[in-house]
């Protein structure tokens, strides 16, 4: 990428007419001519994204209810009640487990799948297009539909297919996938990994394609074994992409609630109530706008950390490339 952000940051002095030929000057330094190109998107984002963010922070310091028009006052009670509330701590704990395991497995399986498809392609084996399409299709299905689909797979009666599979393997075949609190969270994580793996796979696969073949060739000539190539060449070269993927997956996982809503609705009890679903529940079932907004701010704070990381990663990559 030639128009790197870092180059721009180091030269603060705008080049004068003497520096560049006039034709090029017109392109690089258009004066005000650039703003008509940027304003439509800029205004839309300011209106649709910035306003809600400011508004939700403001509301988080109030005792407003969702029923609009009622008067409300400013208070810190929302945050106090979150800090004291065991339910919120439980939600955070569940979210942490959910995000940790979802992310780790999505990344591991996604990377492995990418290595597999990429490797098979380089060997000229058949079937890679099918594999890619099938895995990626999972990513394109709306989260709620994935929840419904996995709900059908997890049916706990004798007609449930996963339970039938378990009974063929010699288990009881009556696993309470969604009605047992501990097992429910595992079930939700498995479904979420199924949903998100494709995204990691696509990014890793693209990353693998950027590694030139000569690198592998040279390593092989030097007598490197497969696991050495993976550990000393592929993984280090893929590190920037793996970290970017990690950040994107973590954000996505923190914010997801559609799949969980359709699969368990947060239950049994609140065993699978992740933070984003908790925000939804607080707002639209409990109608506590203030407290819900405060929970949303916590969610947003987590996002901000991830966004900052993401920007650093992207800008570093732009600078290098």
């Amino acid at each position, binding site marked *: *990428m*030639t128009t790197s*952000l870092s180059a*721009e940051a180091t030269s603060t002095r705008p080049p004068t007419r003497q520096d560049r030929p006039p034709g090029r000057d017109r*392109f*690089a*330094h258009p004066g005000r001519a650039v703003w008509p*190109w*940027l304003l*439509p*998107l*800029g205004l*839309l*984002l300011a*209106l*649709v*994204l910035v306003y*809600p*963010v400011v*508004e*939700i922070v403001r*509301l988080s310091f109030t005792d407003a209810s969702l029923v609009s028009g009622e008067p409300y006052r400013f208070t810190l009670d929302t945050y106090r009640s979150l800090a004291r509330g065991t339910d919120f701590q439980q939600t955070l704990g569940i979210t942490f487990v959910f995000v940790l395991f979802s992310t780790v497995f999505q990344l591991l399986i996604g990377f492995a*799948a990418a290595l*597999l*498809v990429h490797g*098979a392609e380089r*060997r000229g084996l058949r*079937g890679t297009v*099918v*594999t*890619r399409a*099938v895995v990626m*299709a999972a990513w*394109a*299905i*709306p*989260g*709620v*539909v994935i929840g*419904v689909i996995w709900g*059908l*797979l997890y049916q706990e009666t004798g007609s449930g297919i996963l339970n*039938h599979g378990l009974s063929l393997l010699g288990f009881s075949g009556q696993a309470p996938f969604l009605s047992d609190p501990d097992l429910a969270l595992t079930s939700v994580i498995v479904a979420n990994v*199924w949903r998100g793996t494709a*995204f990691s796979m*696509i990014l890793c*696969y*693209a*990353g693998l*394609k950027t590694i030139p073949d000569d690198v592998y060739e040279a390593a092989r000539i030097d007598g490197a074994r497969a696991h050495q190539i993976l550990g000393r060449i592929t993984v280090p070269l893929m590190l920037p992409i793996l970290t970017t993927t990690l950040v*994107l997956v973590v954000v996505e996982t923190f914010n997801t609630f*559609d799949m969980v809503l*359709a699969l368990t609705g947060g239950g049994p009890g609140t065993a699978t109530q992740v933070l984003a679903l908790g925000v939804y529940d607080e707002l639209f079932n409990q109608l506590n*706008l203030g407290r819900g*907004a405060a929970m949303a701010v916590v969610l*947003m704070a987590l*996002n901000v950390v991830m*966004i900052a990381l*993401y*920007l650093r990663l992207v800008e570093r990559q732009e600078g290098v490339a």
Partner: protein
Amino acid sequence: MRGDRIGRAGYHLGQAVLVIAFAFPLAWVLSLSLKTGPETLQSPPSLLPESPQWGNYATVLENTPIGRYLVNSLFLVAVSVTGALLVAVPAAYGLSRFVFRGRRTYSRGVLAAQLVSPLIIAVPAYRLFVALGLVDSYVGLVLIYIAMIAPFLTWFLKTYLDTVPRALDEAAMIDGCSRLRTVVSVILPTIRPGLASAAILGGVTTWSQFAVPFILLDTRELFPVSVGVVNLQQTAGEITTQYLAAGSVLAVAPVIVLFVVFQRHIVGALTAGAVKG
């Protein structure tokens, strides 16, 4: 040579495992959707329906608004993707072609906007729309959809435009084209594959949106298919397994077809947007 043969077998085996793991849930739902009511309750379950009940689909289309939901989703996708491209193309061009003060801030804003949670947007938007009487209106919904997909499309198209030589713009402008004319009649045709990828990705993302329409729409007739499916599921007392399965198949079929047909574009789009930065 022997090692190589084992290696090849390993690759085939690995791919087979992946395909089964990812295709099986969908295949199972497809199978359920073609069973009779008693068959879905049968224990142990049979893998395939005894005789495929294609009538289940007719029943679902007749007795639930799922057809309506599909049409709504298609409409929302078409309008949102068009709208998003209308703001994303100029912004991408500006970012790719001009050096200006505030460029860094602007690109950071665009990148950060990709990661704002729909839930956080939806709640204040709901209050605002109640006040403005926009609940149940597609106008507000489409604006939010556009704002949610445009940042990603902008970034993707910007990286795409970076690969198009500036000499092309310069030549057109020396020939007397205005900049707008240059973009419309020279640049846009050049980046048509990029536009196609962007449109497909924006379409898939819009199709999957759930939080925003779920919160902003009250009237059933206006639901997109994602919200509609939850609605079907919540009336599970009335709807039996095979119909729920058929509804799910109908809800995913369009996206899967699109995805399989345009797979190449989609891989390219995702990777350009997220990896190259």
